[in-house]
């Protein structure tokens, strides 16, 4: 090999979604096979297995590794596979299109930066074609390419293709999604996957592979205010270590030694003394995306769950009431007056559903009147927590504007925070705190004044 370029540094996660049987796994299988990304012998191995079981060969079998999946011809859980181009390294996440496995689709999609949404040209737009698009927008995936698959079944007809594109675009507009491309393909015949085929001469756009290459990698929010949810405070004494390290991953912004930090919701302040690391040179600045840790000048009592921010930047919101969008996956509906637990950043707070603003049925994408949130519903609602917590709205900082709801040991829903509601209780408590502080200050100053007025000052040993 004369091109001694080392492997590309950039990597990207792509999720493939769409309705059951619309050909997601086949698209990926084809992509891997046609880019020469399969281990030697893998294709033959699968062909041989199909021959022995008297089954027609399918590219999907390359991915659908689980025995149940091959028997039923469906994908049960999201699988991952890898391939490389000159520009970057891709992790392709295959997801199940079956309604029962929306949980896995969500898991796959929330790890991705961009998505391919597959629609069967013959069957047209189905329930999960809509639901998955809606979930992608809620999960925060903005780069989407729509593949109209099985064009061979409709004879590569341009008019039928354009009709699907038109109707689906109308739907996407309603949920504020703008796809980058629509591509007519046939995954089984390999049409327009890695090369443009003459079978669809009328199509002038990119191939699937070209579309992937045009997606842009996520940029970490380095220039937003600092948010570092505290994962733990470590004091390991082994080997005479005396450091007390605040550890966490920087979700946005950056830290430097000497920075004044404020932790929320407690409001405690200190200054970064050193940035710590093992087997790496000493750093004086660390940016978003890094799992890091630092020591403080003044020792304050900090716990997991607080968010570190900088004194000279915008502070996170702190309250006990929020307006949020929730996508519910729980077996049991989410109901009012039932205690749940909410995980946001590294914090965990008790939460109840105070009221529902509106509920959307994600199969129909329409609002329906309801007093509970059923499985697969998306609801806009008001949540009340049992204590103050720190966060941002999704518009301000995405990473700290997301949460999950835990019901009976299980993650049962995911959500995004739309608005911090200033509930009266918090205001009252805040006023009391600040009044107390002022009172304390005047009391202390008063005492000092009195002391200073005396001739001799006696310090009592404590």
């Amino acid at each position, binding site marked *: *090999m004369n091109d001694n370029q080392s492997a590309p*540094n950039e990597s990207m996660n792509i999720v493939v979604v769409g309705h059951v049987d619309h050909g997601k796994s086949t698209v990926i299988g084809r992509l891997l096979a046609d880019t020469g990304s*399969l281990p030697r012998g893998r294709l033959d191995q699968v062909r041989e297995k199909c021959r022995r079981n008297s089954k027609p060969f399918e590219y999907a079998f390359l991915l659908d590794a689980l025995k149940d999946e091959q028997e039923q011809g469906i994908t049960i859980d999201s699988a*991952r596979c890898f391939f490389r181009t000159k520009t970057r390294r891709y992790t392709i996440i295959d997801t199940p299109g079956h309604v029962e496995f929306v949980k896995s689709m969500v898991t796959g999609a929330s790890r991705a930066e961009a998505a391919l949404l597959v629609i069967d040209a013959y069957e047209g737009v189905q329930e999960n074609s809509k639901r998955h698009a809606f979930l992608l927008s809620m999960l925060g995936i903005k780069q989407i390419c729509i593949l109209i698959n099985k064009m061979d079944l409709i004879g590569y007809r341009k008019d039928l293709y354009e009709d699907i594109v038109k109707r689906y675009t109308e739907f996407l507009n309603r949920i504020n999604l703008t796809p980058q491309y629509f591509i007519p393909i046939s995954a089984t015949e390999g049409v327009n996957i890695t090369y443009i085929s003459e079978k669809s001469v009328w199509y002038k756009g990119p191939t699937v592979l070209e579309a992937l290459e045009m997606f842009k990698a996520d940029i970490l929010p380095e220039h937003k205010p600092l948010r570092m949810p505290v994962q733990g405070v470590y004091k390991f004494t082994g080997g005479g270590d005396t450091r007390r390290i605040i550890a966490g991953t920087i979700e946005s912004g950056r830290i430097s030694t000497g920075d004044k930090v404020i932790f929320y919701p407690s409001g405690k302040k200190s200054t970064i003394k050193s940035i710590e*690391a093992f087997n790496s040179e000493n750093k004086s600045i660390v940016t978003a995306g890094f799992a890091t840790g630092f020591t403080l000048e003044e020792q304050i009592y900090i716990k997991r769950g607080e968010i570190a921010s900088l004194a000279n930047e915008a502070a996170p919101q702190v309250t006990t009431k929020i307006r949020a969008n929730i996508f519910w996956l729980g077996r049991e509906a989410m109901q009012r007056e039932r205690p749940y637990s909410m995980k946001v950043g590294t914090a965990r707070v008790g939460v109840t559903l105070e009221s529902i603003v509106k509920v959307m049925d994600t199969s129909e994408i329409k609002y329906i009147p309801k007093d509970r949130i059923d499985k697969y519903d998306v609801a806009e609602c008001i949540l009340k927590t049992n204590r103050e917590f720190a966060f941002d709205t999704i518009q301000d900082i995405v*990473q700290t504007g997301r949460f999950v709801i835990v019901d009976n*040991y299980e993650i049962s829903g995911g959500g995004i925070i739309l608005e911090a509601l200033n509930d009266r209780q918090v205001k009252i408590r805040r006023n009391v705190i600040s009044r107390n502080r002022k009172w304390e200050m005047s009391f202390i100053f008063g005492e000092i004044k009195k002391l200073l007025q005396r001739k001799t000052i006696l310090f009592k040993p404590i």
Partner: protein
Amino acid sequence: MEALENKSIHILREAYSEFRNLCMLWSIGKDSTAMLWLTRKAFFGHVPFPLVHIDTHFKIPEMIAYRDRLALEWDLDMIYGENREALESEGTFPAGNATRLECCKYLKTDALKNILNGSWPRYRLNHKTGKYEMDSNTDAYTGVIVGIRADEEGSRSKERYFSPRDVNSGWEIGEQPPEFWNQFKTDFAPGTHVRIHPLLDWTELDIWKYIKRESIPVVSLYFDRGNGRRYRSLGCAPCTNPVESTASSIDDIIEELESGKFSNIAERSGRAQDIEDGGGLEDLRRGGYM
């Protein structure tokens, strides 16, 4: 590489904060050794939970020597366990009394299950004497960190970062919990446990590049030592075949994987039990295998 490292460290720290009875499986292979190194990075030079090795007693002797050397050097809380009954009654594949898959089940899956839940003895390294002693702690581990990678074989590509196991260590693939963004399943019912997989997104090549970048010591079986053979994947001696290769350094291995003779041959092609399970580890893994 930086992104992979950060994600793994984040996962390790989440595990440490959320599970009281936490342990890490260390198979002595390159993956779990890289994971052990990531742990030292996550905790600033420390390893704040025990390492558990399931000893089948068919491991290549050099692996055990290497294990004990690093355990002493890095001050690791080292524990091993075994299926004594199967070994004593010779109900194993090398003794001719079990198939490869049955042998894997007895010596690895069953041993793992019973060591984790505390019903079989655990042996803990005494750093003063350098010897292993019966461990008095028999509490079940509720969080178990395992160094599997999604690109190794089909069923592993379906894993979660935090993956629940039922009372019998069983894995329900269709019923896996969702993972939203950076939020993982850290709540679990009594009697069940959670497997934690910090290396899921790494490939074999990533691991070697990381070993090189960090100068992590790996067992010398991975290198050709003059006979034109080396191990690409380490397991029990009777079921793991070396590959024909003259790679004698980490750079050679990286070259071999990137553009050389192994760039398109599956890593576990030298592991006989996979072939017996129809080309994967699914049946073993549903039953609790790592």
